[in-house]
């Protein structure tokens, strides 16, 4: 028994040393007696956490290397290759504002204004208050020829928070409001002291909820199609033979009204409505 305990202690020390060294291994469990339910649960939890941390750390290391490689391509002036490299990282399902920002830069330098705007807009969803991002987006928009959709003032205003930030802010006020209301029930003596705070929490909850509703409406119902081909023709129906209604240039942002198979119905800022093939546009959620 004593020998087993000593052996178990040695294994734990080794595992701790390995973990200190940066390696993530499954914490060893010495079977000193039969498996109990809590022990099994702890084992599964530890296994899951270790696997998660291991995979995340490994993936982050890979992505950082790929990101650096793409940055190098950009610095060498190989913008199209850099854009492809950034896209590969994005295609893995993870993203960061910097990654999308750099992808937008590479697309812009490669002459793909629509792709650049699409990348910047996606980055803006994650970091709406990034000054550099907004500057580059404004710059690229200025390069777009022809009329394009411009966001309204209220869209710009609600777009200064991400949808998740809005949701968390609203949730915080919501929780605070009910916490104060519950405290008033539990300690009625505190009710007069908590009255102002409770009212403030109620007002803030309503206001933040309204902003969140606007954000959600903008995000889900105000999708934008960014033209990614040099010039595209909007047609009167969702098929190639339909009559042309208007044309839009690379980078033009159009309001999405409807979708049908591989076509999206869009409206330009002049109010003209037409159908565009999805191959020619990038459809993005509202800000």
């Amino acid at each position: 028994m004593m020998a087993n305990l000593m052996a178990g202690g040695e294994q734990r020390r080794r595992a701790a040393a390995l973990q200190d060294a940066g390696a993530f291994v499954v914490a060893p469990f010495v079977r000193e007696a039969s498996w109990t339910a809590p022990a099994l649960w702890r084992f599964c939890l530890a296994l899951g956490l270790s696997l998660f941390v291991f995979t995340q750390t490994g993936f982050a290391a890979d992505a950082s290397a790929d990101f650096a490689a793409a940055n190098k391509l950009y610095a060498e002036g190989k913008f199209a290759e850099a854009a492809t490299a950034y896209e590969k990282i994005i295609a893995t399902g993870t993203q960061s504002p910097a990654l999308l920002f750099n992808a937008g830069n590479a697309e812009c330098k490669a002459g793909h204004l629509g792709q650049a705007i699409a990348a910047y807009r996606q980055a803006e969803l994650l970091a709406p208050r990034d000054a550099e991002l907004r500057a580059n987006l404004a710059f690229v928009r200025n390069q777009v020829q022809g009329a394009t959709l411009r966001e309204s003032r209220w869209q710009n205003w609600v777009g200064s928070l991400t949808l998740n930030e809005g949701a968390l802010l609203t949730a915080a006020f919501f929780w605070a409001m009910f916490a104060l209301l519950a405290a008033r029930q539990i300690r009625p003596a505190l009710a007069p002291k908590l009255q102002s705070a409770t009212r403030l929490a109620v007002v803030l909850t309503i206001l933040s909820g309204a902003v969140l509703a606007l954000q959600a409406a903008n995000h889900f119902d105000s999708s934008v199609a960014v033209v990614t081909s040099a010039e595209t023709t909007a047609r009167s129906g969702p098929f190639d033979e339909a009559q042309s209604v208007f044309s839009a240039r690379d980078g033009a942002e159009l309001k999405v009204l409807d979708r049908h198979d591989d076509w999206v119905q869009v409206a330009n800022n002049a109010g003209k409505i037409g159908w565009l093939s999805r191959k020619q546009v990038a459809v993005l959620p509202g800000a």
Partner: protein
Amino acid sequence: MRLTLKTLAMLLAALLPGAAWAASFTASLDRDALTLGESATLSLAFEGGSPGRVPAPSVPGLQIAQAGTSQNMSWINGAMSATVTVSFSVTPQRAGEFTIPALTADVGGQQLSTAPLKLIVSRASAPSAAAVNSGSEVAFLKLNFPKQKVYAGEAIVARLELYLRDDVQNFGNFQITSSPTDGFSAGKTAELQNQRRRVQVGNRVYTEIPLAVPLTAVKTGALALGPFTASAVVVLPSQNQNDPFAAFRGEQKQVTLATETLNIESLPLPEQNRPANFTGAVGQFDFAASAGPTAVTVGDPITVRVQVSGRGALDAITLPVQDAWQNFKTYPPTTKLETTDQFGFQGTKTFEQIISPLNNDVHELPALTFSFFNPEDARYHTLTQPAVPLTVKAAGATVLPQMAASKTTNEEKPAQDILPIKENLGTLAPATEPLVTRPLFLVTQTVPVLAFLAAFVWRKRADNLANNPRLRRQRAVAALLASGKDDLKKYAAENKPDEFFATLFRLLQEQLGERLNCPASAITEDVVDGHALLRNAPATLRTALHEQFQLCNQARYAPVRGSSELDSVAAQFEKLISQLREVRA
């Protein structure tokens, strides 16, 4: 058609077998002189037999088309004769002298030929003034052009007047067959509504029907306008005195009309004093402009609406380039033309141009100018709309480093390039759905609501208890009994009868006191029969209560009992307590 005629001819031949000996074939024109635009009728008559094949005449420069067939049968002195006549419409394509050659046909087995026919086609020309004044012309056409000299780009409406003599009962099929307007851009000719009138021309009264021809001079130099030619069919009173219906039917006559040729001089626009922003607008115009919104952020769109209204070639007007807009990004303007006359020369052309300020040093939309040439006074005019004050804010915190850096050198220059890439990848996160669509997030939001509801219920129950002393006592007794039962078991186990029965008696007093709503100290065995509530209780309960009280009393004097007996008493007590709780007032 030929088959039909052949069939008809064969039918006639079958019906008239005896007519073969008198066969003849003749060709004739209803007129031998035409003016260009008129038509003549060629008739081929087959008499005394049927044609094997009707010949189709073909003459270069003449358009000959079969118009119909008629037949005629007659008896003269007992002899019957039959004639089949095939008609052709002959329309000349050009002026000149034409010959319709001899035609040959097989009629009743005989080869017969016609004589050649001559047709002279002359160009239409305007009637002489003498002919017009004499009233000999049934109809004539006149072209009026208001000026002898025009400027290139000037829009003018020419007037084409159709005159019909007063004896013309009706007219129709009016067609302008030629309208030479070299050097002019011509619009659609249309009748001027409500302007028909009767005028005296020479010896006769004519009805004047005016038509408008919108023209815009597009060339300079000597231009020839006309002759315009037209054809029409007029209805005149019948000259046939034997026709009783002549007064009703009239006599149709095709007329060819032509105008004189007008020589117009088209002048180039003067080079002298030509404004720099002149874009070719010729006419008389007014100019209005507006812009909005006037409080914007850098990059925001401003809509500039420019309206040019007046008379002239509105179609050709373009918005002049505004050199003073170098601090704005401009987009191609949209145009809308609204005309108020039928020729498109009068109305308003509206331009809408989107511009956006490139920096926040812009304080106004510079004055807008529009220049045009007025052919009436032969001068250029420049109209100016005053500058529109603007409030342009910087685009939030978005300050471009290039712009910031360039502030020391040239503040007005817009960004020349995008900002460089970021070296730090930052925190990578999986592309997930927004929180508001995740069920876990939404379910989590019910936690504070449930916590509040729990606190609310707890508060209500606490308030209820505080306001109900009976309930409070009930709960206190229940708690006392819960602990008392444990004590009883303990004392029974330790075989301590004195403590056991003292506790039992106290618990009995507390429970009965709570049930009977009286102080516990006032409870004795007498209440079992004395209190109304217990008097109405089952007899077994009362008996059990008596027994419990008596056991407690006996315990003070009786010898010590064993643990098993105490356990039995405790069990009876528990049963008694549960029965007591069921007693209702």
